[in-house]
């Protein structure tokens, strides 16, 4: 009898690294990939499995390396009423993510060894892997760089002041110069606060109609351009977070053609929503960067299609109901996304032929793993067995009552989606299983 912790078999197994897509069977022992076969498990083989071996028949589903969301906000420490590391990880598991990276804008921020250590310790009992991202500057004030060496030693996989831009170019230059020696990327939150001013919505004819003060696309693009330049100059790896405009995508395209060490991500809401929706003044649509125009959405999709955009990340940003149930301009920015990402990517990108399943696993698994040098992102023998099994045909309606996240601030509530996570497997352990 062959004894395995778990065996997953199906007719659509995808390994974005080798480019394999086809039938496959994955054998997991002691939390690691033990054997990977490029064919479905036969009747005889399944009879040969011991009683202790759990078998998942993923026929009709897509099986690939565990998904990684490299941009989430977990609110712990500081706002445990909105999300904790454990609830955020549970939401991640439900969404199909086996690893998530949490941004440092907590209270206190993740700007020193002790707080990074706290996150790492807390994450030990979480359902999925949680990797902290340290702050670029002390207190995220944009003035003095953090003890980046210490942060990396404590477990930070990148540094970012996400939530705030590093407005001073000299500080950003020093941060990149310094971070380079630890071989970690700087994740930029590209936003020029002077150009944002009092803006609360994308500056367009719609902001004019709705009387909302505008955030012009140049508020993002001048910082994208600046950080690309500093990255080119310092040779530090730069990852641009949540790009939202056509101009940003073309700046990245141009930088990549010059071989600048730049990567970028977009969020599902920025390839799904347009600013004409603000007619409702629904504060769940208030997000930073703001949802933009149809032209920007098309450019973002184009960037996803031609590979300019490396990563899809949710920018999961939990906010309490009382903080969101206010006037549009008074509401905090952000929406939750861990549990709607897969459905939105399948519905908006796969179903519309923008990307295929190979690209899906690149942008949601392999590329974030490569950028952050994480384990995972590939089906590799002896590596930790993180897998995501997706039912591509499952139709469902976003229901806030089913969210595992502590917060419910999603503008996608009530939306019909296609494609849902069936199983989430971390180190061979099923951490999420969809009910029928």
């Amino acid at each position, binding site marked *: 009898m062959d004894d395995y912790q778990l065996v997953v078999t199906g007719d659509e197994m995808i390994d974005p690294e080798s480019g394999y897509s086809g039938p496959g069977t994955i054998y997991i022992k002691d939390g690691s990939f033990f054997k990977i076969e490029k064919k479905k498990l036969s009747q005889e083989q399944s009879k040969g499995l011991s009683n202790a071996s759990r078998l998942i028949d993923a026929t009709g589903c897509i099986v690939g390396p565990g998904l990684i969301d490299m941009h989430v906000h977990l609110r712990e420490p500081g706002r445990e009423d909105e999300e904790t590391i454990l609830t955020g990880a549970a939401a991640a598991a439900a969404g199909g993510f086996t690893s998530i990276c949490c941004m440092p804008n907590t209270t206190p921020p993740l700007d020193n060894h002790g707080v990074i250590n706290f996150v790492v310790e807390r994450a030990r009992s979480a359902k999925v892997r949680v990797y902290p991202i340290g702050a670029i500057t002390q207190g995220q004030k944009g003035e003095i760089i953090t003890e980046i060496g210490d942060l990396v030693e404590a477990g930070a996989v990148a540094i970012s002041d996400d939530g705030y831009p590093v407005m001073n170019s000299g500080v950003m230059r020093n941060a990149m110069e310094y971070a380079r020696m630890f071989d970690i990327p700087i994740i930029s939150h590209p936003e020029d606060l002077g150009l944002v001013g009092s803006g609360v919505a994308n500056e367009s004819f719609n902001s004019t109609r709705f009387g909302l003060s505008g955030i012009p696309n140049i508020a993002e693009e001048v910082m994208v351009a600046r950080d690309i330049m500093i990255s080119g100059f310092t040779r530090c790896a730069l990852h641009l977070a949540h790009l939202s405009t056509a101009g940003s995508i073309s700046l990245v395209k141009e930088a990549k053609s010059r071989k600048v060490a730049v990567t970028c991500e977009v969020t599902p809401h920025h390839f799904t929503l347009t600013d004409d929706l603000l007619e*409702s003044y629904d504060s769940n649509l208030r997000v930073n960067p703001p949802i933009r125009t149809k032209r920007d959405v098309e450019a973002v999709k184009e960037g996803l299609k031609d590979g300019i955009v490396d990563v899809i990340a949710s920018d999961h940003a939990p906010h309490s109901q009382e903080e969101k149930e206010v006037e549009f301009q008074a509401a905090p920015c952000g929406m939750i996304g861990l549990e709607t990402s897969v459905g939105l990517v399948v519905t908006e990108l796969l179903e519309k032929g923008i990307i295929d399943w190979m690209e899906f696993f690149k942008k949601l698994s392999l590329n974030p793993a490569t950028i952050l040098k994480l384990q995972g992102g590939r089906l590799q023998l002896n590596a930790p067995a993180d897998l995501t099994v997706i039912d591509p045909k499952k139709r469902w309606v976003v229901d806030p009552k089913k969210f595992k996240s502590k917060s419910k601030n999603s503008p996608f509530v009530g939306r019909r989606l296609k494609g849902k996570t069936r199983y989430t497997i971390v180190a061979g352990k099923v951490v999420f299983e969809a009910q029928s």
Partner: protein
Amino acid sequence: MRLKSRHLLGLEGVSRQDIELIFNTGVTFKEILSRDIPKVPTLRGLTIANLFYEPSTRTRFSFELAEKRLSADTVSFSTNTSSVQKGETLKDTVQNIEAMKVDMVVIRHQAAGAPHFLARCCDTKVINAGDGAHEHPTQALLDLFTVREKYKKIDGLRVVIVGDIKYSRVARSDIWGFKTMGAEVAICGPTTLLPYEVEKMGVKVYNRLEAALEGRDIVIVLRIQTERQEMGLLPTIREYVNRFCLTPPHLAGLRENFTIMHPGPINRGVEISPEVADGPYSVILSQVTNGVAIRMAVLYLLSGGRLPNSRRKARAS
């Protein structure tokens, strides 16, 4: 006749027929206002809350008077503090309104969309009395009403709105309203005070007052807030005055029945000189009088009632 919408949140998308219905109702109420006892029992038993989250005298008095003339029961609330600060949030207000069984709410708020928030969260009917830089529909309706009274039509009239278009809710409502009623609308102001792609609203854009006034029938002058200078949108108020203040020399060569309007409160000497504001072309005070009649019309129509003089007939049928 009924209005198509349950609420009056803005004039964008409001039909010509609805605006005409409001006008015709307004004419009836204006006549009532000229009676010895300018009061009708039309809205007796109806409770209206006036929520003014932003300072206002003119609009608030106008609404309160309109409500009293219609015999509604009213409660008014006025505050200078924004709900962003600690204190009662709009959500709390909504719940209180529900609990007190208010039938209609008139709201003025510094946040665009605040009336929409109320309309979405509670069951009462909502009238927008100005929300941020979004809309101020009753102001535009009274402007239109005043113009129609003078010219007996709006179709084909040439209107120009001068000043801070970017932050003006009056400008937006006036643009939609005058366009819907067939006027040709232009705007004029410094480029920093024009909102993004405003020409898509179907208006011609001018940066020189003299050019903008050429061949116009009506000029609507907007208030300039000194805050705009602090925001860096104007170098100085002096430069604004030099280029955009409506002064007597501008009036030479204009059409004889030219009209000057201002939603108030006026900054005399900034956007309009005192001689012009108080001069013969100005209808600023009839705007105020008409404001009460038009607000009575809106309150009445949203309450779903019938015209007071058709009451008996309605009962008989």
